[in-house]
């Protein structure tokens, strides 16, 4: 019982609740130290640069940032610029087509690959390898293939098929599809791999249940399996989506925005005006609009992902 007494006296002096400081800093100290690079990146680079971007978009900074505020002038000019408006339209058009097609083709191919095909790994490699190549290379080779005189069109015409036309790259109405062909070529394989991983993750017994129920295979894929692949779809959309928003290299390499301004995209506008045009204010105003768009798309996703339930 004496022990109990000493224990009790110790109780009084023992910390009952750790103070705020130690809770904030000392708890998980090494974890916090280890996460420091991430915290710094997030705060300094992503948050900091975003603030920087928005801040200077309200100035008339040229080659160097400077604190001369001009209100919404840059934005007014931005939306008065037909190239910007074309860029936005293109991004929406290309983006939605690319997203939809990448996902559907990726899914379709994954489904085909899931049918116990022979040479699966060969097919997989064939579909995936373009992902290893840069957009510069992608743009270059497709530019070459779609070149009206040297590429497919020229070749077929030389072979005597004079009516053959494949001039999307120089046709303002079709140029987005030219971009799409090259973009899909590069990106579908990766999406297919993601989808395949998702398909393989579906419980075997679901398939059996569907077979016993007499559900045709395609119907099972569409009605049962696809809706189950939420995790994969989220990952795929994040990866494809971030690629679309940042679309730049491919356009530069394939069409350089042409013909005319028919294949311009926002990232290119930002870059051209920040560096080519030496107008940081204008470039940043455009960038801010892009960020705003992303934010609007991302917030519901982040809410679904991290808000609501405390799921991991």
């Amino acid at each position, binding site marked *: 019982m004496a022990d109990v007494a000493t224990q009790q006296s110790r109780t009084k002096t023992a910390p009952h609740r750790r103070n705020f400081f130690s809770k904030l800093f000392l708890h998980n100290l090494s974890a916090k130290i280890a996460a420091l690079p991430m915290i710094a990146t997030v705060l300094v680079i992503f948050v900091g640069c975003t603030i920087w971007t928005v801040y200077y978009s309200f100035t008339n900074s*040229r*080659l*160097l940032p400077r604190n001369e505020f001009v209100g919404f002038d840059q934005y007014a*000019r931005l939306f008065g*610029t*037909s*190239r910007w408006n074309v860029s936005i339209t293109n991004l929406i058009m290309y983006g939605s087509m690319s997203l939809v097609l990448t996902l559907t083709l990726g899914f379709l191919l994954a489904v085909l690959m899931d049918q116990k095909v022979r040479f699966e790994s060969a097919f997989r490699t064939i579909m995936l390898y373009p992902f290893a190549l840069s957009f510069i290379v992608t743009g270059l080779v497709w*530019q070459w293939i779609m*070149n*009206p005189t040297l590429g497919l069109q020229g070749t077929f015409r030389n072979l005597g098929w004079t009516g053959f036309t494949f*001039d999307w790259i*120089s*046709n*303002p109405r079709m140029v987005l599809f030219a971009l799409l062909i090259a973009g899909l070529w590069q990106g579908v394989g990766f999406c297919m791999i993601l989808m395949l991983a998702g398909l393989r993750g579906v419980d075997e017994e679901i398939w059996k249940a569907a077979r016993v129920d007499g559900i045709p295979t395609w119907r099972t894929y569409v009605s049962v399996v696809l809706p189950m692949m939420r995790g994969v779809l989220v990952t795929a959309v994040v990866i494809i989506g971030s690629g679309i928003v940042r679309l730049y290299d491919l356009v*530069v390499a394939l069409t*350089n*925005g*042409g*013909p*005319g*301004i*028919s294949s311009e995209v926002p990232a290119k506008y930002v*870059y*051209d*005006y*920040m*560096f*080519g*045009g*030496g*107008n940081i204010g*204008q470039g940043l105003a455009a960038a801010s609009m892009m960020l705003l768009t992303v934010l609007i798309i991302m917030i519901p996703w982040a809410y679904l992902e991290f808000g609501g339930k405390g799921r991991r």
Partner: protein
Amino acid sequence: AELEVTHWWTSAGEAAAIAEFAKVFEEETGNTWVDSALAGSGTGANPVIISRIIGGDPMGATQMNTGRDAEELIQAGLMRDLTDIVADLDIDSFYVDQSLLEPCRYEGGLYCLPINIHSWDWLWLSTAAYEKIGQPVPTNWDEYVASWPALQEAGILPFALGTGWPINGIPGVLMAGIGGTDLVMQVNRDKSADAVRGPDFRKVAEAMDMLRSVVSPETMVPSFGDAGNQLLTGDAAGNIHGDWLQGDLQIAGGVPGEDYECLPALGLGTQLTGGGDSFYFPVLPEGTDPAVIEAQEQLARILISPEAQLKFNLVKGSMPIRTDIDLSGANACMTKALALLDNGLLPSGDFSLSSDTQKQLEDLNLEFIADDNITVDDYVERYASIIEQAD
């Protein structure tokens, strides 16, 4: 010492030209020219050059367009003042035109050295094409325009054009040739939107409209070099492009006067608009080897020396910045240009307009050429509003 020099002259002809500078520099000073070439001018190389200067890792010297690209770098004190270095050379005396040095001066200092003059004001015509239709090669713009129907009849492309930026210089050329000296001055120097809205500029716009009627995306070739090829083969009859096209024409075996004709200022005007390239010398960080700083000075002086100027420009196909050198090696076209040089230079767009304004104009021109829905009135109005906002 090793001196790093950045530039975006990566094509065969350009590289050969800059090699002349390097050769002279290395031979005469014993320094080493460390070459950093970056393809892609405005969008490719510019950001790298600027960010390296801002980032505190500047090169010893760099090429840039003569103009206002580096304005703010100079204002921020990142460029070296060359006044003392060239003080004994009396540069004012030999520069072809004082306006060339204008952009290099800031608050009494001298921050860059133009090393050549490029002019956009050339109409290039294909001898072969006119032989095919049996007409004489036109001697000015109006005759050239008049020959289009016949050319089209014969399946010859009246006007060759490379995709992208080559369209950019054409309004300036038309402005100088059709609109005349005053218009150029009012628009480019005075930034007068009224002048743009005036009748003279309208003629320019209409000329653009006519051009647009004979070019379409399908007829455009990937690069201006390909357009040059079209002239040599006679697939196309004419092209407006800067004097550097000649370098390509010559490399491809073309002989001026035989395979192609050149009409400076469209055969109409008496003055050329001129821009060109300059060299800048960034302020090197503290602790840099003094030998490198000295090499900067040596290079600066060599770039504008008669010997280097001669060798460089003959290869590059541009006009030297000084006339006190023997240009007997110049070909027929350049000789024509040199004659016009005596009348003084007109300030070109890339000379007097900020790159921001140029970029906007480029976008406008690209759009106008490609999209027939934009009327001449729209074009004039949008051009005017860009000039209005220009600073």
